[in-house]
């Protein structure tokens, strides 16, 4: 406890005392409002706060509210020129984090008038702007966010959306299949296109540039685009299917990115790609370009683990996913649960849900603290990518359903009989699993038997299962949800 006197625990309502020059507790300045009922138009943030020793949770929550809205460290008389109560964010509830005595959840409401319409940059500049370096806290994490319909409707959302993407691609009723070209770096444009052609002809829907493939000395972007599009069109003719390859247009400046996107369009690509590291403004600009040019936008979440992975500090990926959907991307890497990268299965399902829900319901085991109406915002196709293989097909389909993209990079290109065989193995495994699920079989448990049966008519699948069938990545997750199970209402 910080030994505050009773007078320091609540808002000072006497204006002469409130605006006397000097320093007050954030609670005294009006940022702790336990009696406040959020308005339907408020944005609500749920923070995980780890206060410094001696800082009470309510004061810490009030500090977060203040520093993420209009407070500064001292009283300023210029507050009195404004409707300041409106602009003050209001911390209205704190609760201890279950099984974690150092940490608290704090609910903070922000008035709609604090934010510029349709700007993720503006929303994030407030909510995660200065406050994460605030000294009275040891650590701070934005766990979840409720964005009201009134604000949701100011964003255009995904340029294409997963429903229209499926119509354009003529692919329905199953997850899409992709692969990232490997090795990530060093292939010439000519060699790179070979990998694209083999993967697509073998049965994948998409191939993909990796996040750090831009325009390096070994492969100029223009060469890559030309060779890749030859491969895409040849594979389309060889299979009778629409095919695509995510052409990464990430570059140093928007001018460079637009130039690359225009070239992708001129060559007839159905999809371009960007990396999360380009920033919110660039993402929204590319989304606008994509809406004008009928282009699907694939977002690789490069860099996110620097702030999403550790539970104590940063921003949960479920918040990043909500921002990405509003900013306007069509594909979003959202984890695999069973692959090589971080992600507890329920938490990852929570990310998938916010990409695809028409209405997100509170679901504490999946880390979703709020109901949220997406107001018909188009849906994002979540992407599972990183260390997955055909032998996990039943788990992937069971966890994530049809509306996702499963990307097997090493699991395609590393096949002992070559890339086409790797693609065949994945496509056969997928189709067999979808068929079995639709026939009413319990794929979570019967999956291995279903794969084995499918492998009887498919040598490449048998070889894939022999090569990778036993590979798993079983490590303790660093980011599972913290919640106290409440007794069911009888």
């Amino acid at each position, binding site marked *: 406890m910080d030994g505050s006197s009773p007078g320091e625990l609540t808002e000072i309502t006497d204006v002469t005392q409130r605006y006397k020059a000097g320093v007050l507790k954030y609670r005294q300045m009006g940022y702790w409002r336990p009696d406040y009922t959020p308005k339907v138009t408020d944005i609500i943030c749920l923070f995980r706060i780890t206060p410094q020793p001696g800082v009470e949770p309510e004061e810490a929550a009030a500090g977060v509210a203040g520093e993420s809205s209009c407070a500064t460290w001292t009283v300023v008389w210029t507050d009195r020129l404004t409707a300041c109560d409106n602009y003050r964010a209001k911390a209205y509830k704190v609760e201890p984090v279950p099984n974690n005595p150092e940490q608290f959840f704090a609910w903070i409401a922000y008035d709609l008038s604090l934010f510029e319409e349709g700007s993720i940059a503006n929303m994030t500049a407030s909510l995660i702007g200065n406050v994460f370096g605030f000294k009275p806290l040891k650590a701070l994490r934005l766990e979840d966010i409720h964005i009201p319909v009134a604000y949701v409707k100011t964003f255009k959302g995904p340029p294409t959306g997963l429903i229209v993407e499926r119509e354009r691609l003529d692919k329905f009723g199953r997850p899409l299949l992709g692969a990232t070209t490997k090795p990530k770096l060093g292939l010439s444009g000519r060699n790179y296109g070979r990998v694209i052609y083999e993967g697509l002809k073998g049965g994948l829907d998409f191939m993909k540039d990796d996040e750090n493939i831009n325009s390096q000395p070994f492969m100029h972007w223009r060469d890559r685009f030309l060779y890749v599009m030859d491969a895409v069109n040849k594979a389309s*003719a060889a299979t*009778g*299917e*629409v095919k695509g390859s995510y052409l990464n247009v990430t570059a140093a400046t928007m001018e460079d990115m637009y130039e690359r996107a225009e070239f992708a369009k001129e060559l*007839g690509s159905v999809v371009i790609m960007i990396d999360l590291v380009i920033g919110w403004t660039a993402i929204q600009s590319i989304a606008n370009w994509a809406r004008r040019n009928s282009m699907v936008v694939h977002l690789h979440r490069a860099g996110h683990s620097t702030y999403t992975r550790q539970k104590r500090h940063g921003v949960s990926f479920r918040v990043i996913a909500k921002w990405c959907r509003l900013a306007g991307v069509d594909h979003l890497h959202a984890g695999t649960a069973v692959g090589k990268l971080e992600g507890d299965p329920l938490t990852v399902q929570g990310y998938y849900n916010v990409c695809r829900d028409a209405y997100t319901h509170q679901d504490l085991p999946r880390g979703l603290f709020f109901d949220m109406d997406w107001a018909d915002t188009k*849906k994002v196709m979540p992407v599972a990518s990183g260390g997955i293989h055909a032998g996990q097909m039943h788990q992937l389909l069971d966890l994530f359903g049809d509306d996702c993209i499963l990307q097997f990079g090493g699991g395609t290109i590393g096949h002992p009989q070559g890339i086409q065989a790797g693609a*065949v193995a994945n*496509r056969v495994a997928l189709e067999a699993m979808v068929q079995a699920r*639709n026939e009413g079989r319990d794929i979570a448990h019967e999956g291995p038997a279903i794969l084995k049966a499918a492998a009887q008519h498919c040598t*490449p699948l048998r070889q894939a299962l022999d090569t990778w069938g036993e590979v798993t990545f079983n490590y303790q997750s660093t980011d599972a949800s913290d919640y106290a199970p409440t007794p069911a209402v009888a």
Partner: protein
Amino acid sequence: MMTNPTGRITQGQFSFLPDLSDKQITAQIRYGLDKGYAWSIEYTDDPHPRNTYWEMFGMPMFDLHDPAGILGELNDCRKTFPDRYIRMNAFDSTRGVESVAMSFIVNRPLTEPGFGVVRQEAEARHLRYTVHPYATDRPEGERR
């Protein structure tokens, strides 16, 4: 003869599996009906990947909820057009979806001629691509 690993057009949900039997097709129809989808049957002799509008074999069967009845319609279509591509489509009218939810090929020509790529070379190494179905070299109604 197409040269991809299946030797045939790979559109739809199940082109990489052995041809579905009537029993297997019925199971898929039942799955769609249980989800509330409406089935329809479409056929074509021009399977270009961007030929969206195959011919409808009658209207979508919004009010037919019996898998055997839907399979009967499919078999009528097969009798009428034994040498065409035929696909089963399921529509989901849920708000926010309102699109095709399932689609798979259930009949094919005996031989599938496939497609060629036509490259038009332009300035600065630009290429413009056309995927050309060999089937459409023959007149409408005489294609395979």
